[in-house]
């Protein structure tokens, strides 16, 4: 049982440290020029990666194609046709649940 509490404490401190490194390393520097372009591209890079990761990653690892793919495809179609965000989320869940129920 102690192991869990040690792991929790280390995870908490480690995560705080990872985030704190940002302001500590940047100090008073203001990014400029091409670094601003890199920073502006971080969101699309992280989002693309997270979407693919959350859609295809297996448990605990490996690539898996399952009902999540149908849900994610539905979300892409919904977002491209400018459906409201909440509708996109509900539709994606519904399609995933339906494919799971069939499959």
């Amino acid at each position, binding site marked *: 049982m102690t192991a869990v509490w040690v792991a929790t404490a280390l995870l908490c401190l480690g995560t705080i440290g990872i985030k704190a490194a940002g302001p500590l390393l940047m100090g008073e520097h203001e990014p400029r020029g091409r670094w601003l372009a890199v920073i*502006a591209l971080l969101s699309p890079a992280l989002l693309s990666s997270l979407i693919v990761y959350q859609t295809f990653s297996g448990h605990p690892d490996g690539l898996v194609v399952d009902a999540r793919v149908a849900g994610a495809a539905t979300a892409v179609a919904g977002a491209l046709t400018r459906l409201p965000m909440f509708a996109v989320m509900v539709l994606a869940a519904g399609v995933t649940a339906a494919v799971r129920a069939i499959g």
Partner: protein
Amino acid sequence: MQRDPSLRDGMRAALPLILPVFVFGISFGVVAQPIVGGLAASVMSATVIAGAAQVAAVTVLDSGGGVAAAVVAGLLMNARFFPMALALAPALRGSRLRQLVEVQAAVDASFVLADQGDGTFSRGMLVGSWLPQTAAWVGGTVIGVLLGEVIPDPQRFGLDVVLPAFFITLLVRDVRTSGTRRTFAVMGLAIAITLALTPVAPAGMPVVVAAGAALLGLRR
């Protein structure tokens, strides 16, 4: 000139996230309770506040991997917060201590919501959108721990795609407002890196490396 978004704007922007994060919290509570105990699962959610890292750590503990392996798995999952925190640093104001506290609000959704598209970030959106997400995450975990036995599997309702669906709407909106050919190149590279590394790299690592696709911005 747009006014700088306030904490309240950030909280409003996070409203669509409350339900999916709450459900994600419930599923973490359900899964973690038999492995680490209900109290530890709840304390973990309230102190680590990073779903994917917690799932990774608990999974390792469950498979008998030991404390060190569990902590490394969780921190690898959270390593993506490092480039995010670097990017956010100039948006933080006040004393160094206050900056170190506020940067803790850097999670995936709050980072993207705070992004103003030009390399700058809104502190109000960052902190404001983090607050309701965190409340939903911790509350969901506690509910999952308490009701684990009677709650049906959230995956049956497809709830595991609700967060990716949210990210998809953010990405499409992002591309519509400020997408260039270079944005598509970065997205393609990030997706290729993620697909290539997911089968071979430890959990979380593919996303960290894929964030490096943003370095394409250095090219003129």
